[in-house]
């Protein structure tokens, strides 16, 4: 808040942007260079991107709550509130320094720069070619907001049947160690980066890494009671389409920060181009999913259109800055197709993912990463992209299986049948999400 702005010395600097005569009397003012000012603008944009990515957590919470049953809503909301808290704190404690170790201690495979944050350059400014792009603090907080995303992706897939404390334990381990360690291979300038692998904002590093853990969780947990009965699929409808829609729009909004911030400066042409490809791919994803689901299911399915938007967004994330607008359309439409096919296919395979997290984040994350090799131009190699996808896939999946498996073997991961039937809100929290509303809890 305004503390001590002295109006009397305030008129020295007059806005000259649109042709007004410029008078810069103050020496301090004169000493402010264009590079300094660019730094301020860059850093401001990165902070805007940071709060947009933060908002994605509300997006996930809303989407996941809307796509599941009313009796498990408190549980979902609680998990998402806890995740963002755990994500930020563990990233400060170990994650950041594991992901950006500066120096690797094990080839280009592993490094750790120590616990806690604050050990940045003296003036806390990170610059490129002499122009400040953001501060150390901005760097940390932007990355911290990303970190929790991987865990949130898991949350939706394992919803309605996982024990709360087991989930929190898995999440903490995955976000604190696996995500940042794997991230270091690429963004931390590790071996994959050296090899020429490209993943602009994290189709693989964030979304697939989350998606693999989701898949591991779904396999080890098994489907919700009543989902697959006598070989037939009994869909379990989400309880609030408005919540799901709010979730997707907020995620789309957040993605402007997720991708736009991944430019790592406010470079006008780059950031605005990323905005365009991001928006176009999302719109194309809606279109693709809408058309295909209308065709397959005869009626247009809102949840598929919503997943289509996310599919397009995940798909464009790896190459938002290097593919053309036309390619963005193609990537988006195909992602929209893929998510519909994947949702239906996983259901056939009896892998029960209530919100479609695996289809959106894993299937389309892989697609997006490979798409860089197809549409990204000569600099990018499909093979290298494939190597990256496989490397991340193997390690992330095995790590997730190990963690989930260990927790399953010790404290267990699945709530009792009774609790599942009456809902995790009563079982885990002794609370209802919609007190007073009459809700059929027969399903």
């Amino acid at each position: 808040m305004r503390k001590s702005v002295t109006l009397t010395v305030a008129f020295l600097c007059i806005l000259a942007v649109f042709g007004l005569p410029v008078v810069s009397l103050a020496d301090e003012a004169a000493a402010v260079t264009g590079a300094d000012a660019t730094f301020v603008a860059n850093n401001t944009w990165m902070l805007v991107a940071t709060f947009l990515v933060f908002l994605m957590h509300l997006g996930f919470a809303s989407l996941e709550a809307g796509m599941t049953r009313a009796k498990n809503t408190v549980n979902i909301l609680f998990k998402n509130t806890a995740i963002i808290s755990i994500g930020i704190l563990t990233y400060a404690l170990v994650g950041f320094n594991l992901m950006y170790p500066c120096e690797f201690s094990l080839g280009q495979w592993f490094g750790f720069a120590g616990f806690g944050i604050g050990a940045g350059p003296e003036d806390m400014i990170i610059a490129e070619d002499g122009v400040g792009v953001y501060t150390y603090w901005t760097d940390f907080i932007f990355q911290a907001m990303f970190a929790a995303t991987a865990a949130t992706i898991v949350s939706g897939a394992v919803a309605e049947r996982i024990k709360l404390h087991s989930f929190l334990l898995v999440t903490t381990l995955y976000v604190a160690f696996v995500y940042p360690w794997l991230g270091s291979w690429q963004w931390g300038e590790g071996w994959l980066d050296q090899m020429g692998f490209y993943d602009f904002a994290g189709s693989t590093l964030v979304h697939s890494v989350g998606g693999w853990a989701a898949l591991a969780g779904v396999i080890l947990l098994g489907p919700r009671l009543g989902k697959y009965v006598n070989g037939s699929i009994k869909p379990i409808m989400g309880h609030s389409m408005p919540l799901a829609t709010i979730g997707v729009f907020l995620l789309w909004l957040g993605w402007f920060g997720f991708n736009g911030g991944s430019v790592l400066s406010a470079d006008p042409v780059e950031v605005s181009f990323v905005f365009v490809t991001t928006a176009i791919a999302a719109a194309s994803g809606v279109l693709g999913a809408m058309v295909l689901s209308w065709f397959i299911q005869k009626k247009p399915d809102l949840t598929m259109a919503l997943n289509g938007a996310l599919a397009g967004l995940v798909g464009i994330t790896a190459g938002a800055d290097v593919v053309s607008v036309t390619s963005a359309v193609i990537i988006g439409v195909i992602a929209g197709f893929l998510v519909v096919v994947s949702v239906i296919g996983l259901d056939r395979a009896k892998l029960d993912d209530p919100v479609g997290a695996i289809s959106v984040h894993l299937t389309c994350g892989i697609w997006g990463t490979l798409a860089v090799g197809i549409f990204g131009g000569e600099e990018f190699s499909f093979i290298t992209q494939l190597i990256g996808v496989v490397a991340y896939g193997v390690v992330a999946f095995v790590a997730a299986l190990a963690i989930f498996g260990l927790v399953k073997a010790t404290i267990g991961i699945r709530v009792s049948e009774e609790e599942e039937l009456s809902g995790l809100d009563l079982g885990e929290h002794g609370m209802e999400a919609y007190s007073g509303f009459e809700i059929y809890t027969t399903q």
Partner: protein
Amino acid sequence: MKLIVAYIQPERLNAVKQALYEKEIFRLSVMNALGCGQQKGYHESYRGSDIEVNLLKKVRLEVAINEEYLESTIDAIIQGARTGKIGDGKIFVLDLADCVRIRTGEKGKEAIGG
């Protein structure tokens, strides 16, 4: 005295109320219900799978009346609710042993009406 319980299609409620009013039956109670009868349900579809919905939304009416109104009440309900399509509903008639108006404590026939 009789207690009439009727299941009708939700969208016919207004017409039934209208028909009852015309027969000067002003007192009734309404509840939501799910019903399963001759009407075989319909299909919803969610995320690529088909859902068979065989518990359809119905409205349940309760009208307590004196014997002499029985015919006209049933007629009114039929008149308001009938579309001729499967799912129009059912009327059940129960004997009512007694009736009490809480406000005044009146019992029996007087309590039911006015």
